[in-house]
């Protein structure tokens, strides 16, 4: 057990290219998730992110069957999911059940696709738990391009989106096109989710997209500070998780989710203590 965290071995493994690629990919993902997170939290979209990530898996399975790159399939799957959820769930009260309905059907399709795949899917299919160490330089290019596009679009719609998220009645009255912003944001979240699915896995993508932001929102009510904190938390969780997992060889996801959960618990305790003081 004292060899569980072997410092020298960690340093040694850090020299490998594939490890460096994984860290770069993770850093990009952390930035993306950290910036989107506070908006996801204030729009109550955690379940929607979960639904989107599961449907990224369906997209990946379809791509596998068709012989296209799993990554592209995941991207297509979550963008379609984001749009479908955006169109079907216009009214807030319906949102929850619509996600449940679409998610269940989508996952069923995914099961079918995997069953139809002639080879051994599990070997090539790390979408459920992620396969960040298999990130190569081409996927880093794809990741960077997607991240830049998502952040650029977000920068353009940021203020009206924020307005529509926190104060929809007045935003609408001031001419903010709230009906258009929701699906645009859903697609941005879909893209980020698809990228997250490929690195930390569908089952754990919430640990990056939601947990750091939820922790940040516990600590500050300032939207700017919440975004900065959320990025910092996401980076600590994802980079820290990878580095810690190197020497023991434990799956990355376990550490990422654990760190991110600990940060969240810490943030809750912090806000309790501060409120009592």
């Amino acid at each position, binding site marked *: 057990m004292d060899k569980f965290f072997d410092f020298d071995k960690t340093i040694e493994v850090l020299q490998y290219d594939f490890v460096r690629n994984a860290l770069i990919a993770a850093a990009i993902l952390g930035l993306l998730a950290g910036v989107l997170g506070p908006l996801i939290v204030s729009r109550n979209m955690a379940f929607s992110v979960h639904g989107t990530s599961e449907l990224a898996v369906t997209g990946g399975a379809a791509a596998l069957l068709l012989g296209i790159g799993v990554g592209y399939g995941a991207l297509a799957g979550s963008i379609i999911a984001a749009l479908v959820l955006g169109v079907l769930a216009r009214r807030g009260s319906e949102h929850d059940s619509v996600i449940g309905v679409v998610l269940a059907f989508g996952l069923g399709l995914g099961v079918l696709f995997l069953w139809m795949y002639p080879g051994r899917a599990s070997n090539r299919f790390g979408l459920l738990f992620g396969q960040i160490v298999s990130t190569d330089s081409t996927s880093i290019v794809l990741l960077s391009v997607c991240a830049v596009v998502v952040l650029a679009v977000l920068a353009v719609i940021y203020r009206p989106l924020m*307005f529509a998220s*926190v104060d929809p009645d007045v935003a609408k*009255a001031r001419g903010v096109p709230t009906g258009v912003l929701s699906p645009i944001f859903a697609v941005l979240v879909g893209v980020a989710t698809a990228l997250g699915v490929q690195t930390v896995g569908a089952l754990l993508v919430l640990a990056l997209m939601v947990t750091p932001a939820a922790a940040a929102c516990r600590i500050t009510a300032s939207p700017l500070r919440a975004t900065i904190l959320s990025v910092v938390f996401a980076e600590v969780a994802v980079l820290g998780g990878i580095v810690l997992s190197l020497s023991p060889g434990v799956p990355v996801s376990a550490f990422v989710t654990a760190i991110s959960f600990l940060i969240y618990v810490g943030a809750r305790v912090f806000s309790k203590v501060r409120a009592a003081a």
Partner: protein
Amino acid sequence: MLGPNGSGKTSLLRVLLGLQKLTGGTIDMPEGTGIGYIPQQRALDPTITLRGRDLVSLGYDGHRWGVGLKGRRDRNRRVDEAIEAVGAEQFANRPVGLLSGGEQQRLRVAQALVCDPDVLLCDEPLLSLDLAHQQAVSQLIDKRRRDAGTSVLFVTHEINPILPLVDRVLYLVDGRFRIGTPDEVMTTEALTELYRTRIDVVRVRGQIIVVGAQGVVESDQPHHVQVD
């Protein structure tokens, strides 16, 4: 603007705000009229990631594209002025969801005023406020009207808290309306004609009480008094 529930008060506001299309008739609004809007008092989500000053700031330029780094200094100055004008300096940096209804409503007023509107539309801004806050909020709006010449359209169930501040009353009932000074509209004859049933308007100690077949129609507690 007064009238029973469902008489179209909020619909009229929504038309003026551009949120609803007219099914008939026309609306005459000069191009580029700046409109400030104070929505119906509804408590914000207590966990919302937003400070009081952010709420006001959204009223200034929240509808513009971009992140708003440019013009930050100007915005901060205007937001500070608006917060000061409603006396919200004490709590403007606190999480807005944790503020009291009265405090939130003062920030709402600041949010509506920060864009320097020509017209201010207020949808029952006094609802669920206690008497002291009702007075504070209506005085704030009245001060704005006198200082900046802003026109104010004020939807309310209760005319008495704002009676001394009102120039004209628009009374809507079932698509019929009367417009005029409170003395012209708030009379037994005018309201009997509007409601098409016997209505008595009585003035007690400077307050107006409207009594109809169903009991008290217009008083300080319209929702509580029913004498069937």
